[in-house]
């Protein structure tokens, strides 16, 4: 298979899955099979792409054979390829988890095609080399996520969906205006060509203003301080698979876009733009972790932790050294897997005990020691306990901060890390370790003569398998940190030296007509 085919497969496979799902609208069983098969293929294509890009370097394909910068370019460097591969992994895990967690009503109203189109939008956004095309992919994934969030129409869901929809539409309209303005300044929308043209813009002030517009629009999508308010009010409302895939992937698309434009396009005034990013990163970490400390709902705690973790990823971008960016990329890989996993585990807890409220939970470790172990792996990894993946991600970031003597942000990162551990221990003690509180729900469970449900029974096995796969990935990344770090470092080097990227996209004619 040629690399060119592989480049478009991560977009085409979810698209085909969605179409086949819609064709089988009345037959939910067939939809399930198609989706799991499609997601398996998507994941394989993603990892194959990553392997090929790692071997051959950056590759681009000009859609419709229009040479850059006139046509739309699909391009994958290592960073894109890593993100696509992880998206495939998450898509597969969530599809399997959905098999026994999504209710019939939602399945009948297009849950599976929506998940597929959303993943198509996500991989499109990762692979496109054109700024306006990126806007279109954002809209593709947004409209699917809107419907997924509101699907079911429960009171909480609708209220969360309105906040989410409004803030995202606002961000899209800023994005659109910024794209229009950047075209008027540089006369092109191809990102590689833009990187060349922006150097020659005579008024650097305009470029800085545009940079801030992009910072705001991607900041809203990534839930950066002070633009994160839509996230904690919406992410805990939909079914757990939807929460999990949103938590794992959607904010990270914003982070990806931000890293892309602030390494490729807006590097003329690094002192100005990247200092803003670094400050915002620090504040994002602190507010997120403090928000989590005050919450007592499993999913709300996790939602606030998404925000604080976004701060770490932006910290690498703000420091703007190759090592720091490698740290950001490592952090992205680690975080997507761990975060999705924690949400999926909260879903199993809810299935076993019927609640997300930490105060109503308890005694899970006594009844389900395996689940306890499965929770501890991602939880400790999130807090950064060696030898799990989070430890290495934080180590790289902190070391890169020390190297360029940015002690303030390093201090914040370390403090927030300790607070994260506090949150995770809180969940551990409340949900797993303490005795279950006396409540009607618990009495109802104990009053039943049936034996306690085990994790290995048929109705739960599809919930446990993805959690185990993701936990295994966390351990593997921790144990095999060296190869993953080298991969991130290579990706970071490509980002810091965009010449190869520009040459691959522009080809022999140098983007000149």
């Amino acid at each position, binding site marked *: 298979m040629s690399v060119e085919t592989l480049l478009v497969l991560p977009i085409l496979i979810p698209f085909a899955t969605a179409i086949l799902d819609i064709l089988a609208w009345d037959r939910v069983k067939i939809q399930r099979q198609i989706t799991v098969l499609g997601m398996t293929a998507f994941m394989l294509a993603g990892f194959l792409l990553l392997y090929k890009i790692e071997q051959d370097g950056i590759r681009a394909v000009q859609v419709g054979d229009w040479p850059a910068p006139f046509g739309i370019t699909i391009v994958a460097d290592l960073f894109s390829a890593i993100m696509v591969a992880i998206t495939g992994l998450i898509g597969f895990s969530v599809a399997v988890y959905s098999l026994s967690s999504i209710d019939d009503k939602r399945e009948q109203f297009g849950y599976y095609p929506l998940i597929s189109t959303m993943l198509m939008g996500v991989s499109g956004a990762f692979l496109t080399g054109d700024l306006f095309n990126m806007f*279109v992919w954002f809209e593709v994934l947004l409209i699917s996520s809107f419907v997924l969030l509101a699907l079911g129409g429960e009171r909480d869901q609708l209220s969360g969906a*309105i906040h989410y929809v409004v803030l995202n539409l606002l961000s899209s309209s800023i994005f659109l205006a910024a794209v229009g303005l950047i075209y008027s300044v540089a006369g092109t*929308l191809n990102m590689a060509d833009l990187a060349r043209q922006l150097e020659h813009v005579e008024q650097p002030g305009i470029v800085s203003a545009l940079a801030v517009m992009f910072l705001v629009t991607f900041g809203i999508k990534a839930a950066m301080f002070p633009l994160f308010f839509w996230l904690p009010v919406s992410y805990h409302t939909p079914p757990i698979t939807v929460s999990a895939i949103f938590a794992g992937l959607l904010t990270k698309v914003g982070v990806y876009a931000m890293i892309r434009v602030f390494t490729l396009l807006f590097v003329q005034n690094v002192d100005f733009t990247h200092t803003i990013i670094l400050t915002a990163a620090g504040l994002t970490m602190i507010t997120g972790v403090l928000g989590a400390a005050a919450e007592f709902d499993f999913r709300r705690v996790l939602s606030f932790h998404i925000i604080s973790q976004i701060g770490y990823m932006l910290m690498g971008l703000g420091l703007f050294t190759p090592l720091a960016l490698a740290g950001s990329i490592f952090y992205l890989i680690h975080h997507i897997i761990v975060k999705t996993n924690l949400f999926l585990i909260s879903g199993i807890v809810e299935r076993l005990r019927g609640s997300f409220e930490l105060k109503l939970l308890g005694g899970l470790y006594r009844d389900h020691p395996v689940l306890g172990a499965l929770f501890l792996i991602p939880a400790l990894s999130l807090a950064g306990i060696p030898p799990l993946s989070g430890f290495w991600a934080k180590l790289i970031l902190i070391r890169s901060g020390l190297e360029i003597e940015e002690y303030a942000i390093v201090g914040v990162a370390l403090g927030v890390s300790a607070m994260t551990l506090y949150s995770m221990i809180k969940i551990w003690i409340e949900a797993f370790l303490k005795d279950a509180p006396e409540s009607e729900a618990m009495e109802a469970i104990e009053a039943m003569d049936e034996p306690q449900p085990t994790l290995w029974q048929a109705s739960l096995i599809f919930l446990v398998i993805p959690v185990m796969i993701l936990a295994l990935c966390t351990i593997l990344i921790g144990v095999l940190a060296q190869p993953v770090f080298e991969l991130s470092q290579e990706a970071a080097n490509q980002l810091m030296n965009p010449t190869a990227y520009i040459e691959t996209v522009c080809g022999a004619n140098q983007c000149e007509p």
Partner: protein
Amino acid sequence: METVLAFVIGILYAAGIYMIMRRSIVKLILGLSLLGHASNLLIFTVGRLTRGNAALIPDGAERLTGDFSDPLPQALILTAIVIGFGVQAFAIVLVRRTYNVVDADDFDRLSAVNR
């Protein structure tokens, strides 16, 4: 003409943001649609306003010369209008559904149920 449009765009943005900050959910949707129009007009204006000169290369010439109206911003606007239409249609249905459930056109009541 640019000056007039600049003011129109400014007023549209101001009106849109004002509407978004109201408590009424219906006005929120109106505000979002005004913001969309403002962005579209902005792209249209920065793509240079040229009348009567289509971007067609004359017979025998190699490239365009002189003033011509750039078709690319207009293509962008077309795409943006179509996307905006779809998204707003969804937003309206969402508001209608929320109105049925919450029984009020009020953001504060909505947030009250969220805790």
